[in-house]
């Protein structure tokens, strides 16, 4: 059982802060590192895998610093987002080379076992250059698993993987977490993370925005105010009626027509909007959510975390 501890870790490049004072503990089981692109997920994984020195704070594996400690790789398996460039090797040659580099007693057997786990035994004789994205991803995973590591770090492992292989990868990660390994993977898709991870760490703009199980994170995201544009045949009358509703936080008229509405309770608003419109004899022509993008969800979480 291994634990990665990040304690007030920051990483900056000149004036750019990639990771800003993050503290988190990654324990056995599957942890999802969730955040939009550019949030600092790759930087965090680089810090955790010893491929980046923290500018401030510490990153340790079972109490020992990881940076410049090559022995740490005995218990770490890393699946970077970077593409494999060993196109001139076959899948088996790559996994075997990884097993040999770990100094395993029987590298051939270990390579075969890892290839079996990711269901890549059959295409393993082909050159990596001929593989699809999903196959490359699986052979990367086999390379990381070959020494049976206690810690598995994966950077965006589901990117470019087709749905069937994605399900397979997900069940694999769940199984590894259940076996007591410390598995951490990054993603920018909440639905992806909540299917695999019990524990979710949210990072936005290099900051630790939220932490908890998927239920807590989902609630944080759905409880936030939601913005809509409502267009009716009497915008001013509609605005006057809506501001009286407890589920509505604010309204404002749009110069080009329509009403901007900020809603605190989406469920109540969905019930009340048609009733109010009917009572006032107003026809609703259009109802559009304006901030359903993931970025706005994350921005809200950052604000909530302050």
């Amino acid at each position: 059982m291994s634990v990665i501890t990040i304690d007030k870790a920051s990483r900056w490049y000149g004036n750019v802060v990639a990771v800003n004072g993050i503290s988190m503990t990654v324990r056995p089981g599957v942890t999802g590192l969730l955040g939009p692109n550019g949030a600092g997920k790759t930087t965090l994984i680089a810090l955790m895998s010893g491929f980046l020195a923290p500018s401030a704070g510490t990153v340790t594996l079972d109490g020992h610093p990881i940076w410049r400690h090559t022995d740490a790789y005995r218990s770490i398996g890393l699946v970077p987002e970077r593409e494999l460039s060993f196109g001139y090797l076959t899948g088996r040659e790559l996994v075997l080379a990884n097993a040999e580099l770990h100094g395993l007693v029987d590298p051939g057997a270990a390579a075969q076992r890892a290839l079996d786990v990711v269901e890549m035994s059959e295409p393993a004789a082909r050159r990596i250059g001929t593989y699809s994205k999903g196959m490359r991803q699986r052979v990367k995973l086999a390379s990381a698993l070959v020494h049976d590591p206690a810690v598995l770090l994966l950077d965006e492992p589901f990117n470019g993987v087709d749905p069937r292989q994605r399900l397979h990868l997900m069940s694999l990660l769940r199984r590894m977490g259940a076996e007591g390994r410390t598995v951490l993977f990054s993603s920018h898709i909440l639905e992806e993370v909540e299917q695999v991870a019990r524990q979710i760490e949210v990072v936005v703009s290099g900051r630790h925005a939220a932490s908890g199980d998927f239920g807590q994170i989902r609630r944080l995201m759905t409880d936030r105010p939601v913005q809509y544009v409502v267009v009716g045949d009497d915008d001013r009358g509609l605005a006057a009626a809506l501001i009286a509703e407890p589920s509505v936080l604010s309204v404002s008229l749009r110069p080009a027509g329509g009403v901007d509405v900020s809603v605190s309770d989406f469920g109540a608003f969905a019930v009340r909007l048609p009733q109010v419109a009917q009572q006032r004899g107003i026809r609703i022509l259009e109802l559009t959510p304006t901030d359903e993008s993931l970025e706005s969800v994350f921005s809200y979480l950052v604000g909530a975390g302050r």
Partner: protein
Amino acid sequence: MNRTILRLSRQALLGRRRGIVLVLIPGVLLVLAVVVSALTSDPSVGYEAVANLGFTLALPLVTLLAATAVLGPEVDDGSIVYLLAKPVSRHVIALSKFVVAWAATMVFGALPLFAAGLVLDVGDPRRAAAWGVGAAVAGTAYTALFLGLAAFTRHAVVVGLLFALLWEGVLGSVLDGIRWVAIGAWGREVAAAISSAVPDQSMGLGYAVVAAVVVTVAALWFTGDRLRSFTLRGDE
């Protein structure tokens, strides 16, 4: 040394287009030697020119290609992370990559110079051997230096070319003092000690050998240390 790294580096070196260029450069040198030798009956004619061309151009080029091929692309695209996420000493990785690049330098750099010398004047094998040994000494130091460059910068090929052609080639021929810090000059000094037919660099054999060893060891240590501090950067 690590046998797996040796094997992977050899495949990286020979499995790419660079492998063809590695053969092409000494091939051109040998063809040139054959042409010069066929066109002249006096062995002293053209010998110096071909040897100089081989020493100042072909040797550093071959070494630069070999040293950057075993490390450069992996560092550039970050895929070296797959080798480095292992409990293997970074200095062992550096040494293993050096050995592969060094072997290529010997085969495609030093040996062709010796062969070209024999083609040009089969009656003076000592002179040919002198160029060969000088090239081996310079090639060893070049390999370590260029490997260090490949670990240090993405522009190792450009910096290496500037060093070999501008610093050692152009400036070295104008400014006499540069020979003290020019790997090519150290190799020539070693060659001059073997055959009097090779011009002396007047710096002393001891200095040339020690300087080559110091640069080789220091550059190898530096390469290992750079790999130990290898930083993985995301696309974000």
